[in-house]
């Protein structure tokens, strides 16, 4: 057997790959579920916080800023571990899936709030004044005039951040979520062969590479006009 054959036999073992393909596929489903939940809830919560911040209620804004700073400073893995291993002591025992979802959604909420807020503040005051003087209320101005312009500005930084945080679903494996990495790791220890790990790696590329390539296109389409 040549070195190359041995390499293929070890890292791309067809028999092992075929056996664990269903596991990896089910891991992909879990990863997709987690990712969709995180993106939807994280972005929505971030937008709501940014809109609340626009109301300019002092104590509320301090609270928002503190929460945002908190989730920007803490490593996502620390938040996951804190929720998963810490909360049971308080009588709530979230599953690994829920812990990972909540943690990464909080992180995305914090980052997207900052981006949405920066977008809102970047709209010149004149826009506010003009639309208020036409008789639109504060809420109408915010939703119909400011937000559409602000959102356009936020799209490139938001896509980058969303991808980076969504990749974090792999962290779920630390708290026994059966997503791709979790499935691949247990398959490696069951088969004593690294092929499932290679499959897992390929699965991540299949899921995320199209998104990254699309984000490049989005970046140029919505690029800042300098």
């Amino acid at each position: 057997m040549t070195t190359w054959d041995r390499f293929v036999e070890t890292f791309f073992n067809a028999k092992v790959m075929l056996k664990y393909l269903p596991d990896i596929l089910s891991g992909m489903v879990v990863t997709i579920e987690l990712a969709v939940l995180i993106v939807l809830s994280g972005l929505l919560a971030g937008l709501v916080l940014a809109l609340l911040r626009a109301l300019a209620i002092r104590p509320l804004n301090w609270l928002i800023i503190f929460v945002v700073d908190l989730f920007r400073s803490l490593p996502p893995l620390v938040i996951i571990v804190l929720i998963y291993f810490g909360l049971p002591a308080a009588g709530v025992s979230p599953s690994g899936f829920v812990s990972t979802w909540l943690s990464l959604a909080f992180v995305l909420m914090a980052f997207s709030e900052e981006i949405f807020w920066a977008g809102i503040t970047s709209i010149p005051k004149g826009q506010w004044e003009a639309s208020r003087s036409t008789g639109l209320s504060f809420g109408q101005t915010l939703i119909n005039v400011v937000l559409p312009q602000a959102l356009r500005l936020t799209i490139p930084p938001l896509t980058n951040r969303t991808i980076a945080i969504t990749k974090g679903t792999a962290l779920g494996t630390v708290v026994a979520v059966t997503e791709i990495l979790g499935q691949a790791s247990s398959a490696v220890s069951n088969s004593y062969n690294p092929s499932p790990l290679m499959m897992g790696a390929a699965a991540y590329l299949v899921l995320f590479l199209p998104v990254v390539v699309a984000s490049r296109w989005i970046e140029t389409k919505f690029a800042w006009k300098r």
Partner: protein
Amino acid sequence: MIETFFNPEIIAAIWPIVLAGLLNTILLSLIVVPLGLFGGLILALLATVHHPLVRWPLMAWVDFFRAFPPLVLLVLLFAGLPFAGLELGGFACVAIAFFLNTGAYYGEILRAGIDSVPAGQVEAGRSTGLGRLQAMTYIVLPQAVRNVLPDLMSNTLEVVKLTSLGSVVAVPELLFQARQAQSLTYNATPIVLAAIIYFLLLWPLVRLLSRLENRALAGRR
């Protein structure tokens, strides 16, 4: 509640363990940040070669690491390489994974910085007799770094946070030590303590960044 989450007796008992973790996290950051910057600099300099044979592989390289979760990369090195007869240990795996992963991110940022310096700067520098490398080192790079400083800092924050992944491959950094302490004491206090330390350590940087980002976005219109 205080008993389980912020127990003073437990803090006193496990403080040395957590402190050792904090020192290792700082040490690890001091190693992986320059390593990532170095990797990024190589990529950014390569990107100045506007040849399709360099450009496309480079883009594929960067996109690959943007799509690939750093933890998967780390596990691949840590659990996969031994099958090829190469046992590297947790620390070396972290260093390699960070060099590759954060290098790609730093590379994108530095490339944008270099692009932001007008071509006239290089031409002027070259016409005074500076070589290509000299013009890059003394004229382009200082301006490039200045232009993308907030992005570089923001990425550095992410890199420091990412060192917590070391806990998965038994590198005794802050999170790893806290989890050890937690399993010794059956109490959540060590993890809460670690979280507080991370927050105190990184919060000033977050505050600074948030100011810089707001100003940058507002100024770009």
